């Protein structure tokens, strides 16, 4: 199989529109949390979220007009606009603009979403109920389908290679990058734009995730303290919106065209819990097997891993189970050299975009030799020799970074990235 490297990055996050601004603010310990705006929360248990900061585009705000025609914006839910923005940034960053037919058919796209156009489906259901089927927009379906994030990116950039999408809840972004890397490794494509996008901060999304008791509800008056992975007072995740995309290509090709190489995708592992629709299996067996598979594929030992970007959503059950799984991954070996943080403490849980955004943070941790912090980790609920990077980012050597994602339905995915060799 061919070696696959990351040569372009793009991001829309609750901290900023853009990779570098998001990363700087993450390292500085800033949080994207605040009160929910845009819809009524008076009867919702959770009244906080991590919105994408909107504006005219200055100061790294997100201005949709910079990324998509206003005519097209009206036809789609926000996750598609975020995906287009992140994919466009990533292609620009990689310096890759396929122009010839040959270049176009070699370049594919694989962007997923956890829930797709939840907001538009909810609004259209009300229109159907109140005004009847003649008022349902001809763009209702095409603006809500999960694979239309890939569809729009493909059309706008002329990408005629594999046109694919994944939807594995909160593991989506990780599966998308892992699967796209496989397509390149096996020779199905030369370049892939891969990632995830989500816009689930709407009334039905918050109501639904609150109903299954996944969201934080104790910090409505202190939103920036609500996402607190591993802390004893954590009580659920904080929803975030956004998208992350990477450009992947074979190592030899990146070298030949003189592209900057951020990192190599050396490991990818997957597993299923076969346990419960929403709860993680208590022993951490599924998470452990996904990490073991990724580490094995990378051809390294667990002690070689310098940094883990945890799934760490700040739910009472999940954080400790993941930590247990990491301890089991190390077995009898000493895990004290490992740093493991949850950047969801700063950006919230981006569901289907989480794995993609977090893989980008791993890539930047490798580039800058620094690990981002776990905010609000005042009193860890468990004792561990692992450095959970409380409060402040920390300079350290990072050659291998591992990124975990676990989703509803018991779907687990793990990537291992390596500094360019």
């Amino acid at each position: 199989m061919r070696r696959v490297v990351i040569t372009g990055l793009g991001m829309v996050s609750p901290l900023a529109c853009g990779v570098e601004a998001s990363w700087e603010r993450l390292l500085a310990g800033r949080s994207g949390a605040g009160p929910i705006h845009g819809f009524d929360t008076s009867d919702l248990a959770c009244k906080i979220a991590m919105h994408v900061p909107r504006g005219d585009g200055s100061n790294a705000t997100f201005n949709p007009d910079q990324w998509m025609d206003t005519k097209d914006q009206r036809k789609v839910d926000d996750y598609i606009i975020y995906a287009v923005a992140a994919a466009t940034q990533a292609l620009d960053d990689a310096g890759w603009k396929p122009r010839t037919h040959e270049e176009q058919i070699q370049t594919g796209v694989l962007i997923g979403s956890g829930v797709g156009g939840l907001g538009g489906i909810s609004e259209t259901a009300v229109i159907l109920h109140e005004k009847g089927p003649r008022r349902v927009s001809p763009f209702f379906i095409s603006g809500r389908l999960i694979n239309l994030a890939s569809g729009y990116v493909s059309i706008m950039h002329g990408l005629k290679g594999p046109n694919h999408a994944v939807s594995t809840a909160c593991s989506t972004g990780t599966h998308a990058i892992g699967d796209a890397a496989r397509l390149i490794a096996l020779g199905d494509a030369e370049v892939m734009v891969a990632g995830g996008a989500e816009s689930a901060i709407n009334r039905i999304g918050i109501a639904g995730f609150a109903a299954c008791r996944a969201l934080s509800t104790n910090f409505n008056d202190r939103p920036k303290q609500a996402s607190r992975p591993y802390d004893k007072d954590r009580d659920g995740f904080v929803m975030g919106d956004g998208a992350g995309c990477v450009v992947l290509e074979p190592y030899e090709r990146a070298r030949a065209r003189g592209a900057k190489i951020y990192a190599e995708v050396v490991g990818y592992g997957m597993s299923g819990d076969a346990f419960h629709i929403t709860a993680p299996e208590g022993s951490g067996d599924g998470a452990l097997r996904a990490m073991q598979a990724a580490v094995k594929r990378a051809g390294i030992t667990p002690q070689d891993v310098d940094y883990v970007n945890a799934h760490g959503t700040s739910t009472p059950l999940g954080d400790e189970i993941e930590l247990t799984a990491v301890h089991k991954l190390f077995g009898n070996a000493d895990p004290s050299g490992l740093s493991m943080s949850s950047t969801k403490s700063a950006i919230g849980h981006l569901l289907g975009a989480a794995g993609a955004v977090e893989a980008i943070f791993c890539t930047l941790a490798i580039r800058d030799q620094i690990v981002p912090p776990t905010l609000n980790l005042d009193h860890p609920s468990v004792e561990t020799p692992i450095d959970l990077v409380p409060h402040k980012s920390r300079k350290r050597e990072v050659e291998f970074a591992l990124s975990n994602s676990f989703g509803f339905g018991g779907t687990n995915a793990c990537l291992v990235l390596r500094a360019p060799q």
Partner: protein
Amino acid sequence: MSDVAERVKKIVIEHLGVDADKVTDDANFIEDLGADSLDTVELVMAFEEEFGVEIPDDAAESIVTVGDAIRFLDKATAS
């Protein structure tokens, strides 16, 4: 400009994302204003919503320019 014409042009500008000066009476939705067939379906829906009328499919098919829409809606709202 009549009230109907003004409201029609506003909808066209908003839905097709085009400049106001391009939205002339003889502008063809598909050939001049960049609409595709689904855009025209949505435009007709927007006209129905704005003017509280029903535009049957065969009538909708004959509305291909801005002027066609204005004339149809002038008549439909007058009766």
